């Protein structure tokens, strides 16, 4: 795997801090995060609950503004990137629209882009195929299992052909088996689409299996405590989860939490 270094990173996070003002106190959720993400890279934000992973992802997505610092996306602001529809977002819950059938959920963002019916139809067909749900396109979301709903959410996020895919613990509500299968599926989709992925998780094996680099965050306040390069070859295979290298990486990352 060769990582082509480009002068401007896809996402440049510079001195980002975020504090939330609650009724009783001020919570410092993120402190001085500075890191670059390259185009086409798959990175994970890893850390225990409450360390600010979601906050950082939401700042990148321009859903919230940092208290200080800045995010630059391919040379522009995060807001410009959002308005240019560069982001596909997948939340922890699928957030499908109940009144739309599977296919119409996937074409939702396309309608807003004003694409023609034929283009919408074509993209939906491709995406349904990609996530293996062609047979279910005329079903309502509640007629699908949790894993299938999350695959619809991924297809919907990919529909706008986003340069950046932001995923916030997308598989954490699923059982271990579905999660591992979806990990593999996600990698196979990513290898075809080739966009930049920022993946939030609190599972160490999941972060290792998926990523080029793992950003380890530590809590109170949320800081970037370590960046771990994952040099496992691609394509990643299920067996690699049992390799000595995999275990070595797990223990490396685990140790980096010890000192926290």
């Amino acid at each position: 795997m060769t990582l082509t270094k480009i002068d401007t990173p896809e996402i440049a996070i510079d001195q980002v801090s975020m504090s939330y003002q609650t009724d009783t106190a001020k919570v410092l959720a993120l402190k001085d995060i500075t890191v670059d993400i390259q185009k086409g890279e798959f990175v994970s934000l890893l850390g225990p609950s409450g360390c600010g992973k979601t906050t950082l992802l939401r700042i990148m997505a321009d859903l919230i503004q940092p208290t200080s610092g800045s995010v630059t996306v391919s040379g522009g602001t995060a807001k410009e990137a959002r308005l240019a529809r560069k982001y596909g977002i997948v939340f922890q819950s699928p957030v499908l629209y109940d009144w739309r059938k599977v296919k119409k959920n996937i074409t939702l963002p396309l309608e807003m882009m004003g694409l023609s019916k034929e283009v919408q139809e074509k993209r939906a067909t491709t995406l349904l195929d990609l996530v293996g749900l062609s047979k279910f396109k005329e079903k309502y979301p509640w007629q699908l299992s949790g894993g299938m709903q999350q695959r619809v959410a991924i297809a919907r996020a990919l529909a706008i052909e986003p340069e950046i895919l932001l995923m916030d613990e997308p598989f954490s509500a699923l059982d271990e088996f579905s999660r591992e299968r979806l990990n593999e599926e996600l990698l196979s989709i990513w290898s075809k689409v080739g966009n930049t992925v920022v993946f939030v998780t609190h599972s160490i094996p999941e972060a290792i299996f998926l990523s080029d680099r793992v950003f380890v965050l530590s809590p109170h306040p949320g800081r970037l405590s370590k960046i771990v390069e994952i040099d496992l070859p691609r394509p990643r295979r299920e067996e690699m989860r049992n390799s000595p290298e995999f275990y070595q990486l797990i223990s490396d990352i685990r140790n980096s939490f010890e000192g926290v």
Partner: protein
Amino acid sequence: MKSQISLGRLTPAVVVVLALLLIWQFLSWFLVILEVPLAQSKIPYLHELALTFSTYSGTLFSECSVTLTNAVMGFALGALGGVFLAVLMSISKWVEQLAFPYAVASQMIPILGLAPIVYGIFRDEQISRVLIAAYMTFFPVALNCLRGLRSADPQALELMYSYAAKPWSVYWRLRFPQSLPSLFSGLKIAAPLAVTGAILVELMGATRGLGVIMLRNLYYGPSHNYMFWLTVIFGAALGILSYLIVSLIERMVTPWQPEFRKSGGDE
């Protein structure tokens, strides 16, 4: 198979209804033999009601259709007004603060007092009936619709935001469909109210409608007792009918609501 099952389910209901009718008939007979004054105005014989119905069904149906037409027109007007105001209030806090107290206060005016005022202004029974029916529809629809429009899932809204969706698109594709269950709760409350409103105005002086024959038969005394009872029964039936029709439309428009989902998905 299916029909057998549903027949099996229906049987208890049929038995209950038959039992109630029998008890009614018995009580009616009981009052008569006790020689209670005006026994038949209290609990009339069912077969007398049926007899009167067979003679006057034409009148009953035609007056009902007059009432229903007015109620439906008023209902449509009130529902449109209610939805319109709800949308305005959901867009602007300012409009809500301005309009909401008046909307609430308007509901404090006794309808019995309002009807003659409206009639006094327009001097037209048709317009008055439609307006009163609209007035009764308006509030529950506006209130429920507003609640629905406000209840959009924050993450679903963020998704729209991330697509850089235009405000009208957020309304059309998210807020409005999401509000439909609430809107229909409002419509289901409002539909029988619109019927009641229309009948009420007819009671206060009109030439046609169920309320008119209701009043007339009440004043004509015991001889018209059965007809009076029939008008009351038809009034109730119109209310129930209006509710059922709105429920049916709801089922067709929002088949995705949890309560309409067939149990046991096919996957």
